[in-house]
């Protein structure tokens, strides 16, 4: 048994786990803060919507598609000057958060846009007929009605961020995924690979379960 897990350093794994959670928490927070308004704006500017604006929608759409088409590992490197400006460093957990946010925000914004499109147009019309302003329609009708869809979007985004953090090792941010690559893969330490992957799986399971429960709770069906 000892020999089977000979390479395991639980302290190292603990630190890596903490790094993963820090990166996930920090980047998810900023992704939601930036992506939710962006998603709402995308929805409102879209064709036949309340603030239908073809040039603005085209521009935002292009920007989102551009960021989504860049491989994350490239984004991580391309972003270094911006990261320095925002986080004061391009290394470690703090250095990983800006690129993680830049990678996940457009993805999350699209999911939010889709969730808002699922809201029955009749709801928007009914709220308009009450004399609501566009701002009131967003806060009092669209966001509450799309809440289950938005929670599902946060769940998917969080899980996507977990896999992105594995690449953050490139800027020395550490984390479980980085451990799996450096020790498990490059040094053939199968035991480290198994344990880190098991821990990542557990994290993904917890996130998905939590998300699903919240969706059911807020669906009011």
């Amino acid at each position: 048994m000892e020999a089977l897990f000979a390479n395991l350093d639980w302290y190292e794994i603990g630190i890596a786990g903490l790094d993963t959670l820090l990166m996930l928490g920090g980047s998810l927070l900023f992704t939601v803060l930036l992506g939710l308004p962006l998603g709402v704006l995308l929805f409102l500017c879209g064709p036949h919507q309340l603030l239908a604006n073809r040039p603005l929608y085209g521009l935002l759409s292009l920007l989102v598609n551009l960021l989504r088409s860049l491989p994350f590992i490239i984004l991580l490197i391309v972003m270094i000057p911006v990261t320095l400006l925002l986080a004061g460093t391009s290394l470690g957990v703090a250095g990983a958060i800006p690129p993680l946010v830049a990678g996940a925000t457009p993805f999350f914004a699209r999911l939010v846009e889709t969730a808002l499109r699922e809201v029955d147009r009749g709801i928007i019309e009914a709220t308009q007929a009450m004399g609501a302003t566009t701002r009131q329609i967003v806060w009092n009708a669209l966001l509450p009605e799309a809440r289950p869809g938005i929670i599902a979007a946060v769940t998917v985004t969080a899980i996507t961020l977990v896999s992105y953090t594995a690449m953050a090792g490139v800027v020395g941010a550490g984390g479980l995924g980085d451990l799996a690559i450096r020790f498990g893969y490059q040094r053939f330490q199968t035991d480290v690979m198994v344990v880190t992957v098991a821990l990542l799986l557990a994290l993904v399971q917890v996130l998905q379960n939590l998300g699903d429960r919240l969706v059911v709770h807020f669906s009011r069906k």
Partner: protein
Amino acid sequence: MIEFDDVHKAYRVGGRDVAALQPTRLTIAAGRIFGLIGHSGAGKSTLLRLINRLEEPSGGRVLVEGVDVATLDGEGLRRLRQRIGMIFQHFNLLASKTVADNVALPLKLAGELPRREIDARVARLLARVGLAEHAGKYPAQLSGGQKQRVGIARALATEPSILLCDEATSALDPQTTASVLQLLAELNRELNLTIVLITHEMEVIRRVCDRVAVLDAGAIVEEGPVAEVFLHPRHPTTRRLVSEAEHLDEREQVDDFAHVPGRILRLTVQGEATYAPLLGRLARETGVDYSILAGRIDRIRDQPYGQLTLALSGGDLDQALSRLQAAEVQVEVLR
């Protein structure tokens, strides 16, 4: 009062203008229930939405209580919409909010009442529509009829003077439809509420409306008091709508009666005269024989009416006709 002054509406579809509403003149009196009937695509939905400017007219003026709605700015339009409630075929309740919160929403948006007064008014409205015990439920837990009652309570929250009903009973079964229409008729009387409703069912018009306009291909083809339009439809579309409701077609009928001897008449009686022993007396006094070929006896809102298709033969026909006319019976000679 709502006035349409040469209002028309066209949509641009694929670079071409498609007329949804031909230039229309119409006056809807305050405190009445006005029906707009037509088949789908006739333009009734457009006409209704011009009133609270969910649709912008392409030309002409829509006057609500004397104000041209096109001249209102954002704030003015919001004030107007708070005075015009609206209910929908699919209810359009917010699934994420409780029944009470749905009803409170228009008041919350208006932002004029403190929370305590909003709660009190919501409780009063829910009690009025018979849903007091469902305040804490979510719409998904209610039946269709209950959802529409929530819709009505919500539409009345800001104490509007006008209520727009967009096919409000089309998704409901006949029994529920009857109770919702009953509620609308009561609210019309209690609150002196002007109700404009659109429907494709003559039955809805007959039960609650005072006046009706018939729309066909974006134009009003017939307009008048419900009894007049319903009992003596002139335009082919109106006739079709009436025969759909009554499951009878007068043209077919007259053909069916080809082998029936004598004159064929249609008698229409309204009000208390409906219940008078008219035909027996007529037969005794003039010696004519009658056979009833078809008929309907029902109510238009609260007024009883009868409409019978008869064949008369033998006796003094001319005398019979003049007696009928004297007895406040409208007589149409079909053959």
